[in-house]
């Protein structure tokens, strides 16, 4: 389902170049729950964003469902992301001036869904995640755990086949961490492929397979 071949990424800044990914080749099958672990600066997030079509690699290829995503132009890659991928971030990245429901409606709107369907689907997703009474609340009016659930609902809006989660529990307390990982597991059980970056070994254990990155290299 997701395949990387000799994936390398070098950042150049002020005359210095940093090798963030060094010839990573991996394959993730449909329906897998993968965790990527490693120390800070090891290239975990870079790898995840490369797989999500958000960082153009310096070398190598990323193929998702047979499509070499960096061979697509910017617009087509955005459409590909919209239809196939869902992102969950450590700091949730919800739009602060929109309500929970409106935040979930954004990807639906970008996909051209009608207003009525947007509202219906967003409500249904938030209800499924236990936020039926928080539809019209803005992020600042929600708890951290609730914000992360809104972010998960937003990631699920266009029924993606893959969820890419970057430290989804990084800002959460133990109870909310368990709750969030529980949601990701249930999504995986429903057939969605989940790739999760984490530096928490306990959270990584929930995954079926763990990939370790050190200095941009895959070590296991």
């Amino acid at each position: 389902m997701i395949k990387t071949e000799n994936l390398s990424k070098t950042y150049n800044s002020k005359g210095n170049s940093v090798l963030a990914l060094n010839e990573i080749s991996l394959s993730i099958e449909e329906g897998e729950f993968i965790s990527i672990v490693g120390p800070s600066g090891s290239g975990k997030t870079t790898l995840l964003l490369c797989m999500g079509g958000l960082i153009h690699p310096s070398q190598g290829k990323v193929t998702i469902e047979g499509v070499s995503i960096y061979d697509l132009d910017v617009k087509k890659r955005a459409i590909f992301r919209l239809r196939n991928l869902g992102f969950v971030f450590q700091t949730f990245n919800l739009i602060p001036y929109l309500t929970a429901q409106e935040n979930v409606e954004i990807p639906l709107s970008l996909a051209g869904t009608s207003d009525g369907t947007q509202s219906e689907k967003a409500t249904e997703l938030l209800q499924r995640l236990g936020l039926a009474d928080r539809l019209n609340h803005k992020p600042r009016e929600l708890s951290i755990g609730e914000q992360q659930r809104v972010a998960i609902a937003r990631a699920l809006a266009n029924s993606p086949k893959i969820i890419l989660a970057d430290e989804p529990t990084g800002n959460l307390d133990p109870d909310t961490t368990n709750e969030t990982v529980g949601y990701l597991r249930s999504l995986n059980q429903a057939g969605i492929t989940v790739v999760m970056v984490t530096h928490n070994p306990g959270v990584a254990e929930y995954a079926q397979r763990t990939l370790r990155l050190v200095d941009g290299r895959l070590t296991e």
Partner: protein
Amino acid sequence: MNLRRIILKELLERKKQFLTSFIAILLGIIVIVAVKSVSNSSEKAVAIQLDNLGANILVLPQTTTIDNYYAADINAPEMPEDYVDRIASSTIPGVDNLSPKLSARINVQNHSLVLTGILPKNELASKPIWQTAGFADPGLQAACDPNNIMNRSLGYEDPKLQRQVIDSLGEYDCLVGSDVASKLSLKEGSGIKIKGTELKVAKVLPQTGTVDDGRIFVHLHTAQKILGKGRVVNAIEIMGCCAAISEGLLGNLRNILPDTKITTINHIVQTQVETNKTMEKFSVIFLIIIILVGGISIGNYMWSNVEERKREIGSLLAIGASPRDVYFIFIGKALILGLIGGIAGYLLGTLAGMILGPQIAGVKVLPIPLLFVWAVVIAVGISVIASYLPARRAAKLDPALILQEI
């Protein structure tokens, strides 16, 4: 949810930041609209004033003086009547009316009077003060702009009206000024003999307080016969459109009548021209100020807005928004800012003009719809141009750099 709603929601959420830029553009538009409204009304008022004064350009023989003309010196130089046709058949814009005259001092019953030959239609049309006495249709007043709807509705372009005026003065009819009527005890229907020619008084003109009160007006061709002159005149009064005068009407007339002296009521035209120039300068200065202050303020606001919303932009791109969507969000916001600034600026500027116009320029100011278009175009233009670079930067942001959290 759609991109337009995202723009509006963000505007409402960050009202204070928005207000600073909005006020900058609003104030600029208010000042421009107010200055333009007042200057425009002032120009119109002066133009109407000039029209109401009657003829404002004099074509005289080269060797004559203005004093000769007003004194109606019997030896005043003359010029061919054909000059009238030369002007009439030219395509010079701004000549609203022609009034050829032949004047000479005569003695009637031991009174020294001035006999003036006129072509009545033109003479009456260029003397609005007489029109109130019923000699002409009010449609011939304020004729500076024949395309003016009001003038058309009053029949300015109706040829029948003008013919009716010509017919009102027959070959042996005369119009007498109020002083002449009182000195010679004349009234409507009286007879008067001038150099052997019997004339009938068609109308006694109301007092004007000018030299016209001491004149006897007859048809130009009758005057030429009485005075024993050929087809000559010693002055052609022209009612020139005041805007056309400032745009070079005098020069154009000089080109077709090189051997004449062409003069105008200089001080009035110059005042108007100077007022226009001053107002024009003010408008240009304010336009430059609004472009600089408004543009810098909006540009600065947009840059900070992009910086502040980097994470939001990154997540939108990650979700599936294209750089074009992000660009639209910022340019759309600039469009709204300009649109609201332009509309509100026009309304408040017009209101300011209506309140201040009578106090500053002594003129009544009415809303000018064309300024609405200008206000919106300027406000939207400045706002969109100032936001172009920030919007482009937002669209080109690297989501990876924004979203890398560790």
